[in-house]
């Protein structure tokens, strides 16, 4: 593809995954600023560090806690995702993550399974309250922001990188502006290349992060790893966050309902059984 304008790119590891950023007519310094932003925010949102802002919120369940603007926005976004998905995208999933042994980074190895402890997830609005500058979890509830955080961050990162940029955080991506030659950013979705312009894309899959016959995509209706009949879903939507929500919802809906759901919510989609 002939690139008519200068594209700067930068790749790094953060949040336990591979990240890539691209921008047209921007300095490398701008891309490094984007990396630092990802690292700073990722450190505050991880559930694997007791000192992170998210871990402190989980530990403070039962009482109100002051939260940053970013975490407040992400929690509001999570509530919106719950509504948007009919309850299938539910960040109050921490207890199930612990039950499947995913209580620490998989690079350190999973812990023992305790699937008998898994329960259907609570309705998110019933256990999470958010107001300006503060949030409260009900006792016994815990949050893992998971892919919601990556989609949300990809959307915001593009505003840092510039008006013509692309941010890919572990497969959750946002493409802003007309791209290198004015026809959009060429992005691989399954076996196709799609030209994205002010759009996002995401993939949800049960093929990755698997161990001991379990995986990390939890069905909130059971609290156990999903078994919908779909293995992987890729989606293009208006934002990275929306793509993440639609992809995970479709994956949980399964092959009978996912096509119609994607047809009414996604801009492009790929389903794999």
């Amino acid at each position, binding site marked *: 593809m002939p690139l008519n304008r200068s594209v700067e790119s930068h790749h790094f590891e953060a949040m336990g995954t591979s990240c*890539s950023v691209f921008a047209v007519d921007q300095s490398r310094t701008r891309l490094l600023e984007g990396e630092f932003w990802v690292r700073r925010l990722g450190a505050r949102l991880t559930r694997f560090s007791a000192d992170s802002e998210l871990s402190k919120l989980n530990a403070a369940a039962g009482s109100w806690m002051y939260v940053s603007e970013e975490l407040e926005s992400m929690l509001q976004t999570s509530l919106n995702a719950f509504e948007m998905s009919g309850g299938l995208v539910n960040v109050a999933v921490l207890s199930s993550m612990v039950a499947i042994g995913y209580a620490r980074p998989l690079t350190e190895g999973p812990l023992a399974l305790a699937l008998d402890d898994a329960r259907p997830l609570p309705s998110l609005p019933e256990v999470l309250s958010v107001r300006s500058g503060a949030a409260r979890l009900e006792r016994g509830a815990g949050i893992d922001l998971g892919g919601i955080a990556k989609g949300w961050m990809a959307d915001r990162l593009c505003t840092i990188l510039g008006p013509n940029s692309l941010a890919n955080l572990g497969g959750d*991506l946002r493409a802003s502006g007309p791209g290198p030659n004015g026809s959009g950013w*060429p992005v691989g979705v399954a076996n*196709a*290349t799609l030209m994205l312009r002010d759009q996002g894309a*995401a993939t949800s899959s049960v093929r990755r992060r698997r161990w001991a016959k379990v995986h990390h995509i939890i069905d909130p209706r059971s609290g156990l790893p999903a078994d919908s009949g779909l293995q992987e879903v890729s989606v*293009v939507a208006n934002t990275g966050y929306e793509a993440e929500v639609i992809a995970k919802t479709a994956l949980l809906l399964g092959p009978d309902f996912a096509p119609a759901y994607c*047809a009414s919510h*996604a801009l*492009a989609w790929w389903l794999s059984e």
Partner: protein
Amino acid sequence: MRSFAIKTGATLLTIGATMLSAVFVTSHLKNPSAPLQPPVLSGGQTASAGGVTIGPSVHSSDVQPVTSTYAS
């Protein structure tokens, strides 16, 4: 006399409010040709490339992608 004036005024006020409401409602009829929300794509509006179903606001290309969406 004062009671009659109050009743008359209240009646006129009610009739006036009803008429104004009717005018407002008839001038703000829902547009029957408005697009469905959320938009529902018909079969004829989608294309396919490499097994990916593509709506009208996305275009496929044969150029090399700069990056991809994937599961992580």
